[in-house]
C-alpha cells in the first residue's frame, strides 16, 4: 500500500505460515450472499469441489445446476446478467476458459456483463494432470477485452475477493484457492483491485509473485537476509489492469534485475505483464521469468511439479544467483520448510 508520502509501506506476511484456513470460500460466501439476492451460483457438476455445496443447501433457489455443459452455462450466465442478476460461475478454471471460450468472449465479455468467473485449480496445484491444470488462463483472460483478471494467494484474499470484485461493473475472472489454504496476509488487510502488496524491501533484486508462488518465495526470505542480498518482494493479485506505484517503484529500484514467479506458462502471464510494463516505462533491467517454459505439465503432486518446473524457492535462489553473478551458498536447510498437503486431507473437496 502506498502511504501519503509516496513511500511504500511493507505489509507483514506470515513466515512461516502460522494459520491454515480450511475451505475459506465456503462459509464466507454464504455470509456475503445473505443480503445480496441478485447473487446466483451456476455450477457444472463440481459443486462441492468448488466449495459451494453448503451454499447450495443454504440458498437452493439461487443455485442453478447447469449440468456438465460449460459452454451453455456461460451463455446462460450472460442471459441472467442481462436481466440484472450477478451469476457466480463455479467450476475448475480449465472448463471456463478452455471449454467455453467463444461463449465467454461473445456472450459475457463483449457485452461487458457482470459475471463472476471463479476458476478453481489454477496452474499445477492439482494432480489431475494436463486436462485439469489451468496453465494459460491468465494469458488468455488478459487478452480478453473488458475482462478484469485476479488471483488469490492466501485465505485473506479468498475471503476478501468478493468485496473486491463487487467494485467491477463488468466480467471478472479470478483464480481461487480451495481446501487447506494458508493465511499469509493479516485478515484486516483485504485484497484490493489494482493494489499489490510489498512484502519485503531491498535494492538488489525485485521478485514479483502471485497465487501460490508468494508462499514459495517467502520460504527464501531468510536465506536472502543471511546472504546479504536486498530483495524487494511484491505480491500481485491483479493481473489486469496491471501496475501500481508499488510495482513501478520496485521495478525501478532493482539494481541487478527482476524475477517473476508464476504458477502458469511464462508466455502471457505475470512475467509478460511485467515485461510490457517495464518496456513501456523504459525500465532497462534484466528479467527472469520462472514458470512453465512453454510446456504442458502432467499429473503429480504440487510439490513435485513445482520442483520439476522450476517454480520452487530453490529455483528462485538460482535465479537470484544468475542475476547477481555469484553463489549465495544457500542449502535446502536455509529455506523455511515447505508445507505438504495430504492428497486426501479432510478439507479437500469431494472429488479432485
Amino acid at each position, binding site marked *: 500500500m502506498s502511504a501519503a508520502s509516496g513511500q511504500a509501506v511493507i505489509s507483514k506476511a506470515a513466515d512461516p505460515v502460522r494459520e491454515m484456513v480450511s475451505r475459506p470460500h465456503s462459509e464466507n460466501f454464504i455470509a456475503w450472499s445473505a443480503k445480496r439476492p441478485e447473487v446466483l451460483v451456476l*455450477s457444472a*457438476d*463440481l*459443486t*462441492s*469441489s468448488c466449495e459451494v455445496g453448503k451454499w447450495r443447501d443454504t440458498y437452493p433457489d439461487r443455485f442453478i*445446476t*447447469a*449440468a*456438465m*455443459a*460449460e*459452454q*451453455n452455462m456461460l451463455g446462460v450466465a450472460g442471459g441472467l446478467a442481462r436481466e440484472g442478476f450477478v451469476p457466480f460461475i463455479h467450476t475448475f478454471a*480449465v*472448463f471456463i476458459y*478452455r*471449454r467455453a471460450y467463444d461463449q465467454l468472449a461473445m456472450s459475457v465479455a463483449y457485452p461487458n456483463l457482470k459475471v463472476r468467473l471463479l476458476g478453481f485449480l489454477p496452474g499445477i496445484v492439482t*494432480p*489431475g*494432470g*494436463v*486436462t*485439469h491444470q489451468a496453465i494459460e488462463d491468465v494469458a488468455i483472460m488478459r487478452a480478453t477485452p473488458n475482462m478484469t483478471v485476479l488471483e488469490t494467494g492466501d485465505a485473506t484474499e479468498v475471503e476478501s475477493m468478493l468485496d473486491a470484485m463487487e467494485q467491477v461493473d463488468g466480467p471478472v475472472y479470478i483464480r481461487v484457492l480451495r481446501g487447506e489454504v494458508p493465511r499469509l496476509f493479516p485478515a484486516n488487510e483485504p485484497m484490493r483491485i489494482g493494489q499489490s502488496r510489498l512484502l519485503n524491501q531491498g535494492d538488489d533484486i525485485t521478485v514479483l509473485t502471485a497465487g501460490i508462488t508468494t508462499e514459495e518465495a517467502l520460504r527464501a526470505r531468510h536465506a536472502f537476509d543471511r546472504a546479504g542480498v536486498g530483495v524487494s518482494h511484491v505480491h500481485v493479485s491483479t493481473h489486469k489492469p496491471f501496475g501500481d506505484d508499488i510495482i513501478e517503484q520496485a521495478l525501478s529500484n532493482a539494481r541487478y534485475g527482476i524475477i517473476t514467479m508464476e504458477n502458469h506458462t511464462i508466455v502471457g502471464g505475470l512475467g509478460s505483464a511485467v515485461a510490457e510494463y517495464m518496456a513501456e516505462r523504459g525500465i532497462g533491467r534484466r528479467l527472469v521469468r520462472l514458470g512453465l517454459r512453454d*510446456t*504442458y*505439465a*502432467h*499429473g*503429480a*503432486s504440487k510439490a*513435485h511439479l513445482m520442483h520439476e518446473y522450476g517454480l520452487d524457492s530453490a529455483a528462485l535462489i538460482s535465479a537470484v544467483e544468475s542475476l547477481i553473478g555469484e553463489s549465495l551458498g544457500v542449502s535446502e536447510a536455509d529455506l523455511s520448510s515447505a508445507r505438504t498437503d495430504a*492428497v*486426501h486431507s479432510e478439507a*479437500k473437496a*469431494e*472429488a*479432485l
Partner: protein
Amino acid sequence: MSPTQQNQKGKPAKPRAKSGAAAKSVTTRQQIDAVERIEQIATGVRRRVFEHTLKHNGGYLSQALSASEIFAALYAGGMRLAPCKRPLKPGRFAGVPGTSNNYRSGDRFNGETAPGLDRFLFSPAHYALVLYATLIEVGRLQESALSEFNVDGSTLEMIGAEHSPGVATTTGSLAQALSQACGIALARKMRNEAGRTWVFMSDGEFQEGQTWEALAFAAFHGLSKLRAVVDANGQQCDGAMSSVGHIEPIIERIRSFGCDAVEVNGHDAGALKAALAEKSDKPYVVVARTDPAKGLEVMARRAPLLHYVRFTSDSERQDFEAAYQQMVGAS
C-alpha cells in the same frame, strides 16, 4: 475369442477349437468360457481398484463397481486388438507430446495397430484405474505397475493422459474422445479399413453438447464402424444424474440423431458380449445400465454421493475393509 486374450499370468488363451464334428458343442463350450472369462476379469478389476481405494484412503471406486464388466467384455474379445507379447512395463513420465523425444503413447498397451484391427479410445479419464486394472487382468500391463498409480513421476496418473497405459487420447476434459474417434473412423473409412473404432464413455458425457455434435457428425458421414459403449451408472459428481441434468431417454435421443443404440444390463457378461458383437450399419452405441455400488452394500449407503470415495470416519473405513475381506474371500 479374441487373439488378445491372455490370462492373469500373461499366458496365452486356449487355442481356438478345430473344425469338425465336435465344432458345434465346442463353440458353445467356448462361449460359456468366454462369459466366465469376462466375469473373472471383472472380479479381478473390482478387487484391485477396491484394494487401492483402501490403501490410499480414497479413490474412484464406484467407476470400477459399475464398469468392470464393460472393460472386461471389451478387452476379452469385444474388441479385436493385437496381443501384447507380454505384460508391458509402463515407464516413467518422459515429457509431453511435442517437447520430448522420449514421449511414448499409452496406446501401445492396446497392441500394434493394423487396418483390420480395432482401435480403442478411452474417454472419461477419471476411470483410469479401472483401465489399468483391466490391462493387468488381460496380461497387457505388468502387475507391479499398479504400485506406481498416482505416484509422482509415474505415467499411471489418477486421471490418465495419452502417455498412460491404454490411453490413446487425452480426454480428462470430458466428452472429447467421441469427436476424435469420429476423425479416426473417418480416416479409416477413407482408407477402406475393416477395423472398428471403439470409445468407452460415461453417461455424464451426454450432458456436453459436443457428444451430440459428434453423434450428428458420425451419422451424417455414415461412420458405421464407430462404436461407443456407455457406462450408464446414473451418477455424477453432484449426485444422481437425475438431480443435476437429464439425459433420458438416452436410447431414443441417440436414435433420433441417426445412430443405432441398444440397451443392455452392464453387469450381465453374456448380454454385454452379445451387444458388443451385434452388427450395425450405423454408428452404434451400447448403453450399459449399471449400478455404481454394484456388489458393495457399504458403497450404496453413501448414495447419492458416489463419484469419489473418501472415508469420512474410521468406522466407515472399517466397514469398507470388512467388505473388501468378504469380496476377496468370495472370489
